[in-house]
């Protein structure tokens, strides 16, 4: 596999694509490539981007999305474009597909639908793992993952990114070849002689006594310890509900709730999206009734440390040699999905997160990625038992090599 990364900050999409392609081709050492993974800020015209890439690289598979912020080896940009070119080696395969109109489908059915489409392209080829992006509103994202795994395999490794643009209130677009989708999911399955390593961490720690969700439906938590759910925050923070509502976004990032998942050491985070008048609150992701929860606390330092841990975990999980390849022949790149909540917390230090990841992975591994509103990943890959979770506030790193 050969890899080349290019980025551009130019506001003109045509110029930006050309600039990024020039850099990527230089890194790739070739004028042709099989896949282009593209992340661009939402203010770019997606059609111009896709048409330009397709025009300049005929026959290439384009996959990616627009997002609030673009992550690359060169740092973080609210406006910009990152383009990764991949030339697959022999016995390395990839297939991509999409499923649209997610809001009209059950999330499990949507997952199954995408899973079906993905496996059709990789018949009789050992599948390694899958990457999915989605921006449609659907119920529980874990059900979506479950549906995908139903088709791809129960313990099939998968990571995903939920993409919205909370800053600009713009719709994000998912790219697949020359098409751009909203309310959809696009995915790719990697197969053949390929290795990968996943690391996902958030950096928040539990605080105070455990509480129990006594009433909830989906992502609406009505009562905790038989008290209106919002009371938990009012008690811990010592502020009135009206003030809590006003400062919710900020508070929710600093003190999300942590779901204690049986058999897992790590807590699964949930941001509070809104507080309802009846005292219930809506989370970004489901909170099953009966789940033991804790108030979580994090700092800039723990957040950055989590990035270091995630990178270490991904590097540690990257499995050993590939048959028929010498170690030095294996080229790697990293996909990084960092929650936009982390960006909000880190602000001007957000770039440091990428610096830390680069320091762990090594500067020779190109990084590309995007800020997300939720991440699909296992809690710990080393204890991976086919269970995927919908995360909030994590940094999820997947190293792909071949």
């Amino acid at each position, binding site marked *: 596999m050969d890899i080349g990364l290019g980025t551009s900050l130019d506001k003109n999409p045509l110029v930006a694509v050309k600039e990024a392609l020039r850099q990527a081709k230089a890194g790739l050492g070739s004028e042709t490539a099989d896949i282009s993974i593209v992340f661009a800020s939402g203010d770019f015209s997606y059609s111009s981007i896709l048409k330009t890439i397709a025009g300049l690289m005929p026959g290439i598979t384009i996959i990616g999305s627009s997002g609030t912020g673009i992550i690359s080896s060169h740092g973080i940009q*609210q406006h910009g474009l990152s383009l990764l070119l991949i030339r697959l080696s022999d016995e390395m395969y990839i297939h991509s597909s999409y499923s649209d109109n997610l809001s009209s489908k059950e999330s499990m059915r949507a997952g199954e639908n995408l899973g079906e489409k993905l496996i059709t392209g990789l018949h009789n080829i050992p599948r390694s793992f899958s990457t999915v992006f989605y921006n449609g509103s659907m119920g529980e994202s874990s059900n979506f993952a479950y549906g995908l795994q139903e088709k791809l395999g129960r313990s099939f490794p998968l990571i995903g990114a939920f993409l919205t643009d*909370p*800053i*600009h*209130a713009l719709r994000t677009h998912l790219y697949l070849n020359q098409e751009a989708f909203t309310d959809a999911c696009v995915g790719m399955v990697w197969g053949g002689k390929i290795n990968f390593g996943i690391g996902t961490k958030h950096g928040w720690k539990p*605080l*105070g*006594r455990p509480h129990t969700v006594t009433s909830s439906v989906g992502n609406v938590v009505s009562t905790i310890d038989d008290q209106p759910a919002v009371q938990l925050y009012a*008690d*811990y*923070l*010592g502020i009135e509900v009206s003030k809590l509502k*006003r*400062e*919710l*976004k*900020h*508070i929710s990032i*600093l*003190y999300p709730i942590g779901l204690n998942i049986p058999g897992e050491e790590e807590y699964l985070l949930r941001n509070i999206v809104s507080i309802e008048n009846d005292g219930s609150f809506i989370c970004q992701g489901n909170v099953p009734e009966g789940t033991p929860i804790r*108030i979580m*606390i994090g700092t800039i330092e723990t957040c950055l440390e989590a990035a270091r841990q995630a990178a270490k975990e991904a590097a540690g999980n990257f499995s050993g040699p590939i048959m028929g390849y010498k170690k030095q022949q294996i080229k790697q790149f990293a996909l990084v999905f960092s929650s936009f909540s982390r960006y*909000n917390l880190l*602000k*001007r230090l957000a770039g440091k997160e990428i610096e830390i990841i680069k320091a762990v992975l090594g500067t020779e591994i190109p990084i590309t990625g995007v800020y997300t509103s939720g991440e699909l990943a296992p809690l710990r890959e080393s204890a991976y038992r086919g269970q995927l979770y919908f995360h909030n506030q994590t940094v999820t790193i997947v190293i792909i090599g071949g």
Partner: protein
Amino acid sequence: MFAFLAIFFLFAALYLGFLLTSKSDKIKQEQIEIDKLRRTVDEVDEQAKLVVRTDIELNKTQEELDKKIIGLYVLQKISRSISTSLEERLIYKSIEMDTVKELGFEKSIAVSFDEKEPKFTTKIHLGFPQNELERIETFLEKNREFWVDIIKREKTLSSFSMPEGLMVREEINKAFGVTSFIISPIPAKEGNKGFLLVGTETLDVPITEGDEELITILSNQLGQSLENARLFEKTWRTQQELEKRVEERTRELTQALEEKETISRRKSDFVSSVAHELRAPLTSIKGYAAILSSGKLGILPEDARLRIEKLNKHSDELVQLVNDLLDIARIESGKVTMKQEPAGLKRIVEETLDLLSVQCKEKQIELSSHIGEDIPHVLIDIIQIKRVFINLINNAVKFTPKNGRISVFVHKIIGGVQVDINDTGCGIPADALEKIFNEFYRVDNAVNMQVKGTGLGLSLVKNIIEAHKGKIWVQSKTGEGSTFSFTLPHI
């Protein structure tokens, strides 16, 4: 057997009782432990609450501090840019999208209000599509009273200081497409006032007091810079106007001077040609008069001889007048160049005094010279300068009564030599001082009534001195004598 059973049951009952008691104690003990643990958990939970509350305060402080640091950095950047601009357009242009974003906002608009028209004009708009501007300006016009009031009150307001749910707040949010905003008036002592609005579309960025302070500083800075620009423009315009007027005046003066020079040249030419024309017949008249007077053509009767002598004398005076006129005209027209050579004034003064000593003796006038030893040589046309001395001392003799005094002083000055010819004569009236060097000007006094003169002597003297790059002036009071002074530059 029965007794044995009874004893057995008794012991069993006792044992069970003991066991129960022991168990109950254990349960009680465990309950105490559980209660203790619960209390500890409660205490830890309370401590956790305390930690969260402290943490939230710390976070807020940290955030506010971060904001202030960024804000101050941004302000410094903008200040540097706008304080070096003296053009309104460039001052507004200093506020860029990146700067607004660094301050934590996505939108910014600066509006100026012209009271005379009256009209709102958008000066900068960042983050607003062009097609929204017209709608915003219509909104401002529609609520003109409100906005003018904000501008005039010069007080910053924001969604932080305005109560939530207030109709105005919602209207502003809607009009500018924001969820939070700060409006800060741009003050102005003169010229148009205005306001700066910054806003954010995201709900999770609450405006704080610190934000308000920063934007207030920014708008004040803007106002100050715009004021400076206005003052600069005003000063610049005044200066331009002044320069224009000076230029016009200079042009007029140059023109007038040229005209004067032309007239003067024409006059000199005219005088010169007339004098030439007069000199020929005058020479003939004087020649004939001399022949007649000599008696070569026969002895003339006494009456005729006297008249011929008068004719001869008047002809001499007329020749002198014509010669003086010719000299003046030549010097003025530049036709006569001074034959300058280095010379000491002492000798010239002594010769002149010697020449005029007879006249002085006749009038019993004390004639003296005071010449310093260190008087440097001057570059002069000796004949012409001697003429100056003769003219001035002769005048002094003429206007000094008997027993008077005439003193000639020569002393060194910076850049040359100054000569003062002081007399104890009748003096010159103040109104005549200015005109005394004019051609044909004669002071209206008793001496002039008796003594004839052409009125050209002082004019000729002035021309000679000026041709030597010197200056001449007179100080005098009626009845107190006069001092004629002139300077000559040294070599």
